[in-house]
C-alpha cells in the first residue's frame, strides 16, 4: 500500500487536503481542511463514496461521486466545491509513494 496527499486552496482561500491510501484501487480517503459542510457528518459518506474507486478515473468521475452524496444527503458544501475535492484526490493519487 502507498499513501498520497494533496492540498489545494479554493479561490476564496479555503483549504482542502486529501490523504489517500492507494492499492489496486483508492483504498481509503480522508478529507480535511477549513471548509464548511452541512451537515458535517456527510463527510463520512463522501469519503466512503470515493473509497474503492479505480485509480485511473477522471476528475469528473470523482466529482460526480461527491455531488451524488451531497444530493442524496441533502448536504451543502461551503467554501470548497465537489470539483476541488476531486482535484485534490487526483493529486493525492499522483503523489502516492
Amino acid at each position: 500500500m502507498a499513501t498520497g496527499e494533496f492540498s489545494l486552496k479554493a479561490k476564496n482561500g479555503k483549504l482542502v487536503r486529501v490523504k489517500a491510501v492507494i492499492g489496486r484501487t483508492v483504498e481509503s480517503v480522508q478529507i480535511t481542511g477549513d471548509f464548511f459542510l452541512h451537515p458535517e457528518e456527510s463527510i463520512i459518506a463522501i469519503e466512503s463514496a470515493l473509497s474503492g474507486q479505480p485509480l485511473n478515473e477522471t476528475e469528473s468521475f470523482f466529482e460526480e461521486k461527491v455531488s451524488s452524496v451531497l444530493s442524496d444527503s441533502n448536504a451543502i458544501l461551503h467554501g470548497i466545491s465537489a470539483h476541488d475535492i476531486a482535484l485534490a484526490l487526483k493529486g493525492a493519487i499522483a503523489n502516492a509513494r
Partner: protein
Amino acid sequence: MPDEWRLIELEIHSASENMALDEACLDEIASGNSPPTIRFYRWKPSAVSIGYFQSIESEVNLDECAKNGIDVVRRQTGGGAVFHDYENEITYSIIAPEKMFPKGITESYREICGFIVSGLEILGLHAEFKPINDVLVNGKKVSGNAQTRRKGVLLQHGTILYGLDLDRMFSVLRVGSEKISDKAIQSVRDRVTSIRDECNSSYGECLSAIESSFIEGKTHYFSPWTSAELLRAKELAEKKYSAREWNYLR
C-alpha cells in the same frame, strides 16, 4: 416559544465547557425548551479550537499547548483553527431556530456578521463583512466566524480580536505551507488586526458596543442557563469535548 431572545452576559469557561454549552443550548432550542440565545464568553485557560474537518496534529502545536497549559478542542462547526487568547478576545455564539435567519448560508453569515460590523462602527471603526465568514476593519481581518445548522437550529459562533499577540498565536498554531506562501506576498501583520490596534477603546467598551449591536431591535431579556442546559453541558464537556475520541477525530 416566541421570538424573544435570551442574552447571557460575559462568562468565563474552559474550552470543553464553552463548546458543550453551545451544543446543549442548540439541543434544548431544538426541543423547544430554550429560547433563541445570544451569549458572550471568554476562554480560561486560553485555548485553540479547530474546525470540525481539521486534523488536530496538522493544525496545532500540541507540545507547545501542553507546555503552556493551553486547551485544545474540536468545534462542531467547520472553518479554521483559532487561538482564543483569554486577554485578547471576545467570543460570541448566537443560537436560534433556522427559520429566524436567511436560508442562504452566505446571507445568514452576512446578517449575523452585520451585528459585529455595527458594533465596531459604534467604536468608530470602518468595518465590513467579507464572505465567506470574516469581518474586516480597514481591510484587515478582525473577526472569524463559523456556522452549523442542526436539528432545525442555526448556531454561529465567532471571535473578535481585541488584541493581538502574534508570537503567542503562531507558537500554538501550525501554519501550513499554503498559507506561508500567502504570507510571502503580505505578512500576517498586514492581513490581521485587532480593535486595540485600531482604536483606544477598552475591553469593556468593546464588549458593550458588540452586545448592544447584537440585541439592537430584538425583544430580549437577561437570563442564565436552564438547569437542563447545564446538566447536558456538563455531560458533553466531560464525555465529548474532553475526549480524545472527539478531539482527535481527524
